[in-house]
């Protein structure tokens, strides 16, 4: 069978497995995007003691499909006076970075000895930060090209907010690298599989004082990171760029039809990618205590993948829960919180981790 041998040449094997992984992950994540919109409506309804969407399909499960059809059929209206090129470019720029983040997330251990990550980069987490820092262009350009004051204010707010919180986002993960000694996300998850999850290092082989002491900076990191992630993804309580009561719709006020849908879906895709990063860095990625990895058989590989997406779904639920529980911050409060609190806390946390590690190494 010469044709099958060709498929297992190292380079060709890498090519088609990567393509297959990309297609499957895109499929799963886009489905999750659609259903996190549905979940958002269901959870908000539950929290506000309403029913939520329940007309289309069982428990409203076909609602995303109907929403999609509605958005496609709407008129794609372009107001006069906009910068047409950037007006059409902006929605794509808002959507693409969120999806690109998925390339380096290890969503499973291995399946048939193929590592379950699309691109196993040694600088994985830097790729996440670099790509998500590009996401601000879509929002800023949308605000500017709309040639209208509310979108413009939304874009300006978004850029200052994202730049401010990127600093605490980046600083808060440095303790993890100090402990694991790698930037590779796959290796970080492997470390957590062996030594216990970063925020929950209870079940491990051996529990000593150093682990107990390192738990403190890890918890601080986790809190700072998750709050900075809320600000980065423009989620409530930090959704100032699109604060309805102040800015109509913020940066997407002038958008309609599928262009609006791209912003909307991009926001949810960013939330899912952000949840994936949180799960990978702090919640043990695909690892589950007493569950072996994919090298013990393909069924465990599948279990690992399911574990990862279950954890992501749990973090998404946390995102929704926060949104419908907390009121919005004021913009000056947001900036103060970023610069005066989280920046310093993250810096002090790096110092604390380094001191603990130094003490136990000597």
């Amino acid at each position, binding site marked *: 069978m010469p044709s099958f041998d060709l498929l297992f040449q190292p380079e060709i094997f890498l090519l088609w497995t990567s393509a297959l992984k990309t297609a499957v992950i895109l499929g799963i994540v886009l489905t999750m995007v659609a259903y996190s919109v549905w979940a958002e409506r269901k959870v908000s309804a539950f929290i506000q003691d309403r029913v939520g969407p329940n007309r289309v399909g069982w428990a409203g499960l076909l609602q995303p499909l109907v929403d999609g059809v509605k958005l496609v059929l709407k008129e794609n209206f372009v107001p006069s006076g906009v910068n047409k090129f950037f007006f059409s470019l902006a929605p794509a720029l808002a959507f693409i970075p969120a999806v690109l983040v998925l390339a380096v997330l290890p969503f499973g251990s291995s399946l048939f000895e193929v590592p379950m990550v699309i691109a196993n*980069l040694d600088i994985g987490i830097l790729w996440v930060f670099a790509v998500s820092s*590009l996401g601000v262009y879509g929002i*800023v350009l949308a605000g500017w090209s709309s040639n209208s004051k509310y979108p413009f204010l939304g874009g300006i707010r978004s850029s200052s907010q994202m*730049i401010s919180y990127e600093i605490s986002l980046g600083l808060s993960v440095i303790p993890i690298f100090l402990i694991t000694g790698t930037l590779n996300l796959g290796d970080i998850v492997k470390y957590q599989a062996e030594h216990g999850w970063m925020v929950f290092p209870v079940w491990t082989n051996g529990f000593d004082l150093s682990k107990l002491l390192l738990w403190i900076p890890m918890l601080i990191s986790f809190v700072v990171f998750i709050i900075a992630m809320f600000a980065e993804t423009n989620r409530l309580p930090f959704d100032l760029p699109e604060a309805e009561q102040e800015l109509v719709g913020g940066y997407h006020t002038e958008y309609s039809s599928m262009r609006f849908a791209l912003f909307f879906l991009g926001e949810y895709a960013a939330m899912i990618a952000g949840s994936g990063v949180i799960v990978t860095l702090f919640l043990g990625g695909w690892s589950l205590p007493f569950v072996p990895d994919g090298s013990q058989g393909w069924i465990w590989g599948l279990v690992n993948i399911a574990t990862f997406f279950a954890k992501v779904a749990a973090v998404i639920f946390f995102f929704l829960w926060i949104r419908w529980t907390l009121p919005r911050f004021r913009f000056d409060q947001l900036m103060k919180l970023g610069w005066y609190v989280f920046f310093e806390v993250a810096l002090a946390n790096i110092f604390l981790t380094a001191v603990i590690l130094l003490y136990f190494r000597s």
Partner: protein
Amino acid sequence: MFTILFWILSLLMLGSAVAVVLLRDPVSSAMCLVLSFLALAGLYITLDAFFIGIIQILVYAGAVMVLFLFIIMLLDLKAEVRRKFNLAALAGGSLVLGGFAILLTQVVKSLPSAAYPFPALAPGVPSDAVGVGTALFSGFNLPLQIIGVLLLVSTVGVVVLSRRTLR
């Protein structure tokens, strides 16, 4: 394959760099500069310098240019769009640029080290992030510490100054 990528990325980088100068709209210029940075980062990555490439995106495309764009949008530079090209300045500029390009090629050609390709960067190092880190913390430890303190002082200074104006 890397040769094809090199040509695509170089053309993209140079083309968008030229567009930065030629386009009259400041926002378009800034976005072309971002594109140029991204293509440059791609060039670094084809050279296996992943760390430098990603830092190029993170620092320049992700942070510095966002600030540029922020300022450009706040200033709302309408006059710049209406300005016409000065033909004499354009001709003079191209003349100087052409002369410089000729000079540069002559100098590079005369160098003995330009005749053969550069060796690959430090073959034994597992990844270039490790290489950069080892070099910074073993060979250049004192300068790194000084720069770190300098940056920290300036950051703290900004926080202190902005707090004073708020009151």
